[in-house]
């Protein structure tokens, strides 16, 4: 799966990868029930991919919210509509920035580390050693990381959104002097739990979590067992994840909105 014949063109290679990735997803899903035996491992991975990504997610969420608050203030002040900045910050973050930026950050922070980790396990025969110890590496190594990614992404996205809105509030209300009550009441009046929070934050980030985790474990598991193979797989994880996130975002937006 890792070594592609040189004469294949980009399209064929991409299709092969996508197909192999899809089959790999089926393998993982089949292994998920068995991986419940390794629940402790899933918890451990949730710690690594989820809790360890919190810092970057929180910092970035705060700054995204702050810059959004600042930009919107200047644009909306042209129309005398700065009171709406709370609404626009919230909707922009819930619908797009929260899930998408969280997923991109997750791909860079956790996705690469999953790929590199599994790739190194493959390169140092740890995967083979598990096979030899009669432990299914899909159930023990791959499925827990995949599950952890799927679970962690919506949670991270919620944290990102909360911090983003806090950042927007910080800039809008505390710095630029929009009325606190106006900021919140406009937001609460317009933002809809189902349309914005559930559709945006939950559905999108669940889909992104599945896709990014799948790409990360697939690239790691099928990497060539050499150091350059791992480096290449790590890069591919980021590139493929980013493209997949934005493409799926468009499709989901078209369907959900």
């Amino acid at each position, binding site marked *: 799966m890792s070594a592609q014949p040189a004469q294949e063109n980009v399209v064929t290679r991409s299709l092969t990868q996508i197909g192999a990735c899809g089959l790999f997803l089926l393998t993982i899903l089949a292994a998920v029930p068995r991986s419940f035996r390794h629940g402790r491992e899933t918890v451990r991975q949730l710690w690594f991919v989820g809790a360890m990504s919190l810092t970057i997610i929180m910092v970035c969420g705060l700054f995204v919210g702050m810059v959004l608050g600042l930009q919107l203030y200047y644009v909306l002040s042209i129309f005398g509509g700065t009171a709406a900045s709370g609404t626009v910050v919230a909707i922009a973050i819930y619908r797009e920035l929260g899930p998408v930026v969280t997923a991109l950050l997750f791909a860079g922070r956790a996705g690469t580390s999953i790929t590199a980790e599994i790739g190194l396990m493959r390169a140092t025969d740890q995967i083979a050693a598990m096979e030899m110890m009669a432990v299914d590496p899909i159930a023990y190594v791959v499925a827990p990381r995949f599950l952890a990614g799927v679970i962690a992404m919506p*949670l991270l996205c*919620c944290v990102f959104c*909360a911090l983003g809105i806090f950042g927007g509030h910080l800039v809008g209300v505390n710095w630029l002097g929009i009325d606190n009550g106006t900021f919140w009441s406009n937001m609460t009046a317009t*933002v809809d739990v189902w349309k914005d929070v559930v559709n945006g934050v939950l559905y999108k980030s669940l889909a992104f979590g599945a896709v990014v985790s799948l790409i990360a474990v697939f690239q790691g598991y099928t990497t060539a067992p050499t150091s350059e193979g791992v480096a290449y797989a790590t890069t591919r994880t980021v590139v493929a994840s980013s493209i997949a996130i934005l493409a799926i975002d468009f499709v989901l937006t078209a369907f959900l909105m």
Partner: protein
Amino acid sequence: MSQRPSYAVGTGLFIVLGFAALAYLATQTTSVANIHQGSSYTVDAHFANIGQLKERAPVKIAGVRVGQVQSIVLDPASEVADVKLSIDQRYSKIPEDSVATIFTSGLLGDQYIGIQYGSSKNVVAAGGTLALTKPAQQLEEMLGKFFGAGGSADNLGGSYTVKARFTNVGALSAGAPVKMAGVAIGSVQSVKADPVKLDAYVVLAIDKKFSQIPDDSAAAVFTSGLIGTQYVAIQPGGSPEPLKNGDELVLTQSALQLEDLIGKFLVSGSPGDKKAAADDTKPAGKH
């Protein structure tokens, strides 16, 4: 395993934090009332014009949300919009002569249905109809009445100039229209600050066709629409003498800041209060 507690605790904290964030987002930043779908009953109301009313728009009594718009269909027979309101069962004592009105929340906000209680002893039953309705007021109409119709200045043939002084011209610039009764009759030729009197000195070029404007007419700086450009409005006076080339308009009203205007307007938002807002914009006769 010795590492287990730290992972478990950390991961647990992470999950709790995530769900806390979700709960915060869902409850603090959204209209939670939208989720509340307890038992409700449906009432019909027919409107001649629903404006921008949409499904799931709130239904309010005394400004408090009591339900939402369930469906909007055009009744082909009577050419009125048949709006079904889903109202919380707790508010089942609505008199049948109550009036359903389509309001706009704020200037740019969504529309909603307000129900003003009537005095009848009979309450409207589930599936009943609120007979008394007021259609949506189009914001454009309201603003049109309020500010006078917009429209650009014609390309003028001959014109004469009159001067006017304002303490504040707002964002008025040369080329802005001069209007009377909402119709363009000329344009602003120049806007200069007077270094001696410390006010704005504005030269208006008015079409020669309008040579019978009384010389005690007032000039005011108005804004076309909400976010439009500013223009000078001439409000005719009662003097028998017409304005002549080079005359100065003595009665002027400076630009009202849009913020003040919206502030006053937003307080009520109902069309009845429009007159009060309009009163504030009458010429104050400042030099």
